């Protein structure tokens, strides 16, 4: 829930209270064995079907000194980048909806279906993929599936230019997003923002580039910053849109690199479940698992002390680091711009459930629908004066 202090139409101060979706998953995890936690961790987030499972598995693999076969590392990366494509497209749809472009919202989600179909073919499900196992992955990729992925990649390659044109060259979107919700580079560093939110402000950080994991050490990855030709990093909503669109192109490239260099061999360190559980039970120590999720750095700290269940499991999801950036972004903005600015960090929770607006000392409540209506009305006004 947000509380805004307003001066007329302008936001003077921002406060927010998260926690409506806190479910105590870490507490539950400290009472289960690592293989059970994998399934629990997949359910931390509905969109990041692989992020938390992979992060947790990597932390446990480091503690138990489990060597993951290279083929499994590559399959993990393929799944991860497919997830980035579907997550960014989902976000693009949400952003279009918040701006009042519902046909664009349907288009983005229709395009997203292709990546979900590939994921379903590879993992068996569209969400909560359950493909990660400690020590590797549970399903191999066949030659036919490689062809299917390549077909999907060429589908997205053909669409990229069109999507850039629709999102980035549209004068109404430019008017609504350029110069709004600005997060300066200094603020992004001080408030420890991560992922596309930080990169749109000009902070060149990307775990895949900085801190090698899985197959990223073998691949060519670089942090995506807003392009110079569109005015360089300004840290506004427009830059966050362009970073995400360029990252879809990068993900296509990374998946292609993986398919071209896919090693042969095993996909699991240990197939026998009792043996794996015994190894994990004996494992002692602490480790950090860290990945670059679609929303930014995701990190798990795990400590195991020779029991079935880990002694400590701390989850740091990507949005956790980005919440603080809302405060400088929203200050000085209009009420109607709040939905798109809040959505622009791609928050991974049910956030704007209610908004309290305090104007001239009296409080009023707005729901998410009220805010979205204000945002849409602003877009229509802008389109009429064009």
């Amino acid at each position, binding site marked *: 829930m947000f509380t805004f202090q307003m001066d007329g139409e302008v936001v003077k101060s921002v406060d927010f209270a*998260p*926690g409506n979706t*806190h479910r*105590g998953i*870490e*507490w539950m995890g400290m009472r289960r*064995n690592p*293989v*059970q936690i*994998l399934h629990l961790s997949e359910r931390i987030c509905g969109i990041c079907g692989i992020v938390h499972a992979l992060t947790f598995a990597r932390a446990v693999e*480091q503690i138990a000194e489990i060597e*993951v076969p*290279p083929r499994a*590392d*590559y399959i993990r990366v393929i799944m991860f980048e497919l997830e980035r494509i579907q997550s960014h497209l989902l976000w693009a749809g949400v952003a279009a909806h918040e701006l009042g472009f519902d046909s664009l919202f349907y288009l983005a989600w229709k395009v997203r279906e292709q990546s979900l179909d590939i994921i379903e073919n590879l993992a068996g499900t569209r969400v909560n993929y359950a493909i990660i*196992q400690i020590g590797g992955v*549970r399903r191999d990729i066949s030659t036919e599936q490689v062809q299917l992925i390549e077909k999907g990649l060429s589908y997205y390659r053909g669409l990229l230019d069109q999507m850039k044109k629709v999102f980035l060259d549209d004068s109404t979107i430019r008017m609504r997003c350029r110069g709004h919700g600005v997060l300066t580079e*200094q603020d992004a*560093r*001080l*408030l*420890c*923002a*991560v992922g596309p939110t930080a990169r749109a402000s000009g*902070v*060149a*950080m990307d*775990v895949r*580039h*900085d*801190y*090698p*994991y*899985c*197959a*990223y*050490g*073998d691949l060519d990855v670089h*942090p995506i910053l807003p392009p110079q030709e569109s005015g360089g990093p300004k840290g506004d909503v427009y830059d966050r849109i362009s970073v995400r669109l360029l990252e879809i192109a990068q993900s296509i490239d990374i998946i292609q690199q993986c398919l071209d*260099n896919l*090693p042969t061999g095993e*996909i*699991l360190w240990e*197939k026998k*479940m009792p043996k794996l559980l015994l190894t994990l039970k004996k494992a002692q120590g*602490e*480790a*950090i698992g*860290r990945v670059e999720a679609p929303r930014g750095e995701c*990190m798990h*700290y795990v*400590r195991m002390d020779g029991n079935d269940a880990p*002694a*400590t499991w*701390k989850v*740091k999801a990507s949005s*956790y*680091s980005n*919440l*603080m950036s809302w405060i400088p972004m929203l200050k000085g903005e209009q009420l109607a711009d709040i939905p798109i600015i809040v959505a622009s960090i791609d928050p991974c929770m049910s956030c704007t459930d209610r908004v309290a607006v305090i104007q001239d000392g009296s409080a009023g409540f707005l729901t998410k629908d009220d805010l979205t209506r204000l945002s849409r009305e602003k877009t229509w006004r802008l389109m009429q004066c064009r």
Partner: protein
Amino acid sequence: MTETPHRTPQEIIDLYRTEFGAGILDTKITERGEGVKKVKAYNIWIRLEKNLLRPAIKKLIDIRFPHFAVIAGSDLGEEIELLYILSVFYGTKFGEYMVTLAIRLKKTDLTVPTITDLIPGALLSEREKQEFFGITVTGIPDGRRLFLPDDFPQGVYPWRKDETGIKPEMVKELWTINRPKDRPAPPVPEKQAAGEVSPAEGKEKTTGGAAE
């Protein structure tokens, strides 16, 4: 935030050892390489005296302004260990290290100074540690609860493993709702579990799947 020279993990530990001497209780460097080329990623672990926390963070800022990830915590019985997990040299190709600064607080004196004046982004994590471990962060600019609801009982700290942790009567057994009465109550005794191989376990042996 000027550019400072890049350093190796060992150099960072040496810098800490020279500056703080006996205040550094333990250090280790862990490394991990994955994929085909096994390019190494490094983690630096530094355990230090509680009063050195703020100087240690300042030292890291001098080396290069770090990215603050989170404060993790463990209940070790008599003490609570707080781990300040940060990373330095982000933006360098394969040159970023995780730096974990760990301090221990006795349960008789659960106070720790704030670091939000050095790294403002640490605020949410400090608020979270206050409510989940019952720690007092001195000087915190905003000490309200973060995730726990306002009507959550005072003096209950979910991540503590002693009598102040979550009490059994607070745990809601959601799985019992609408469950047929004729099923045995879990946990199934170990003997029975070991004797029978369920279809799910049998499948695991051939496919390597995990149907826990």
